């Protein structure tokens, strides 16, 4: 029996286990939307966003929260071009997202037809891979490959461009069980001799530190990481993307490292004699000046992406592998090898040193102030949600305070645009997470700048009754840029003052959501409690200390020990 391309696409999505699609209709995809409503209405939850960028961020948030690929469906031309920021965001953070774009009919491609854009050309550098389906008989195989590529190896976004005539043409539907792409075979098994050398180094080290990145979460290697750390008494620092990959409240946790990392994490890395990097890529926000990064340490680097190894930093033992696979093998080697005793005394001294650093410089802010300190809001959120919420963030100060003050204990509970740093990510990502987990508490920690980049999605949360909570840390500034201007640009606040509004309470009301405001510290708890118990979307407008900064701070390009502490 033959099916149209549109039907075949939706049948394939069912086969892939897709239950939720984020998107926006248009001329080139009208056949797919028609099929979806007429014949697949029960199969998918469809979330109509108000801007295609939000569709990709929502699919990305869904993917990060669940570990399953997020799916998007948008139209040709502007529908496609609006997905670019979302794709680039997912690409930088290795998130499996599959975006389907409509395209003008194949005979018109290249003719500057209405709503035509070369989306495959445009998105080539910001997708893991992309496809133009030129003929309906290639459609099903392409979808299979797209999901396989998006979810395997180092995951990433894949875009599939679907010309309108391909969606209308008919084809047989046989969904392949397996996919074999001869040119794409990600390595998952570690090279055992290297792993043995790594185990040896670990045993002999006196000042070890684990530097855990997002790969730990992607590979679901958090249990192995914890087991290894506890077994070998390894202190663990996490990157922004790695938060939740190791419990933030664990005695071995050093917190985040890097530009806004904790004093003890940066000191630990800088004094370590061994650094075990797992699923991290030595980003410039982590390393600061590379020449001064972990200068005394032998470095073991486990990563599934060979290009991440030896890219920014020369490492001693490169191991290309899946983090879960590598860590569990490492545990096995270490627990079966009884030859070498560790120097427990030296190790105890190291932990004592770490404690000194912790006590010397804890994360801190003025707790006596009656104004609302943004850090206080995050602390209260952590306390009231008991650390059980899914937190998304926008980008800037809000993101860093969230990373510092909300202790993430479990993986997939902190969704943030780490690599690309996309303002406007958090709210739609929260929509994606809430769509995946309707019962969960999902909070977007936002700034008054970032939230306005996708504020139109308030219509989406009210339409689908998604009870997303938005905590706006409202300082009337584009705060992180302002902080740089204060520090490095003589207090010249060039175009970063946005005190003009809007009134977020009225705005919430206009969209049919609940708006709450806290102007004083003593109102914060009440606002959070009200918001969390309200059965619907809420904007919390926290009017925070305008010029509060994020500290510690390492100036860009400086050594990470060079921290401004304030």
């Amino acid at each position: 029996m033959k099916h149209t391309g549109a039907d075949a696409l939706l049948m394939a999505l069912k086969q892939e286990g897709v239950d939720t699609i984020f998107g926006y209709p248009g001329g080139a995809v009208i056949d797919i939307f028609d099929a979806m409503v007429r014949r697949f209405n029960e199969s998918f939850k469809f979330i109509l966003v108000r801007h295609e960028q939000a569709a990709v961020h929502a699919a990305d948030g869904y993917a990060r929260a669940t570990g399953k690929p997020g799916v998007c469906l948008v139209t040709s031309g502007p529908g496609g071009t609006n997905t670019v920021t979302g794709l680039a965001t997912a690409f930088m953070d290795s998130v499996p997202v599959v975006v389907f774009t409509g395209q003008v009919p194949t005979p018109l491609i290249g003719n500057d037809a209405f709503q035509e854009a070369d989306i495959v050309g445009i998105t080539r550098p910001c997708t893991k891979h992309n496809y133009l389906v030129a003929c309906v008989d290639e459609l099903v195989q392409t979808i299979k490959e797209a999901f396989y590529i998006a979810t395997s190896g180092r995951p990433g976004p894949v875009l599939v461009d679907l010309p309108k005539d391909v969606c209308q043409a008919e084809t047989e539907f046989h969904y392949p069980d397996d996919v074999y792409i001869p040119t794409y075979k990600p390595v998952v098994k570690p090279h055992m001799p290297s792993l043995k050398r790594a185990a040896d180094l670990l045993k002999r080290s006196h000042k070890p530190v684990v530097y855990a990145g997002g790969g730990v979460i992607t590979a679901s290697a958090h249990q192995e990481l914890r087991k290894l750390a506890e077994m070998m008494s390894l202190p663990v620092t996490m990157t922004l993307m790695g938060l939740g990959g190791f419990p933030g409240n664990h005695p071995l946790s050093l917190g985040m490292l890097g530009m806004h990392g904790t004093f003890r994490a940066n000191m630990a890395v800088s004094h370590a004699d061994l650094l075990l990097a797992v699923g991290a890529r030595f980003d410039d926000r982590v390393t600061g000046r590379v020449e001064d990064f972990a200068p005394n340490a032998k470095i073991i680097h486990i990563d599934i992406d060979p290009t991440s190894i030896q890219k920014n930093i020369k490492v001693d033992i490169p191991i290309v592998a899946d983090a879960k696979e590598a860590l569990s093998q490492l545990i096995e080697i270490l627990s079966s090898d009884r030859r070498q005793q560790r120097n427990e005394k030296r190790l105890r001294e190291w932990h004592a040193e770490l404690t000194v650093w912790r006590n010397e410089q804890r994360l801190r802010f003025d707790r006596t102030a009656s104004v609302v300190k943004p850090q206080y809001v995050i602390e209260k959120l952590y306390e009231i949600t008991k650390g059980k919420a899914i937190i998304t963030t926008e980008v800037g100060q809000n993101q860093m305070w969230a990373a510092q003050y909300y202790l993430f204990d479990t993986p997939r509970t902190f969704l943030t645009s780490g690599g690309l740093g996309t303002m406007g990510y958090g709210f739609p990502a929260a929509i994606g997470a809430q769509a995946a987990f309707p019962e969960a508490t999902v909070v977007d920690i936002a700034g008054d700048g970032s939230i306005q980049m996708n504020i139109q999605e308030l219509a989406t949360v009210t339409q689908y009754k998604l009870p997303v909570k938005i905590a706006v840390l409202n300082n009337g500034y584009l705060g992180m840029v302002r902080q740089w201007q204060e520090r490095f640009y003589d207090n010249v606040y060039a175009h970063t003052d946005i005190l003009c509004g809007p009134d977020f309470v009225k705005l919430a009301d206009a969209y049919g959501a609940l708006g709450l405001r806290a102007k004083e510290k003593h109102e914060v708890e009440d606002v959070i409690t009200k918001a969390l118990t309200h059965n619907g979307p809420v904007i919390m407008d926290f009017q925070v200390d305008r010029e509060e900064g994020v500290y510690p701070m390492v100036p860009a390009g400086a050594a990470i020990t060079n921290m401004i502490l304030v």
Partner: protein
Amino acid sequence: MEDRHVISALVENKPGVLARVAGMFSGRAFNIHSLAVAPTMDSRLSRMTIVTHGNEQLIEQILKQLRKLINVIKVQDLTDGEFVEREMVLIRIKAPSARRTEILRINEVFRGKVVDMSHDNLTVEVTGSQTKIQGILDLLSPFGIQELIRTGTVAIPRARKN
């Protein structure tokens, strides 16, 4: 040290593959000195010969990034071993009758072929390694090179000798 490397990549012969490779180079600020592409015996595959410059770490990154592209099957840095490289060049030189003999003599030394001739210029075809091409260009440039077309290097590893 910025060394010259000749990289040979076997890729799928599909639309957009060249754009992926070229885009990866430009997007990551890698340099392409020359690039030659054509189908192999198996028409589903193409062979790319890329000449680039860089230190060890950069070349390692280029090779890895190439391998990471989904449509790339095999990548080899020919500079790691023995290989034969050739480039073809077409050179149109100003050649008034008084100077023609001299030009033809130089051409002969370099085993070039005359492929076109008119009253005041002639076009020669020369094939060889990059150094040889540079050699003839140095000798011919005083005569006035009017136009120069190069194919870019193609290269093949030497067969293992038993």
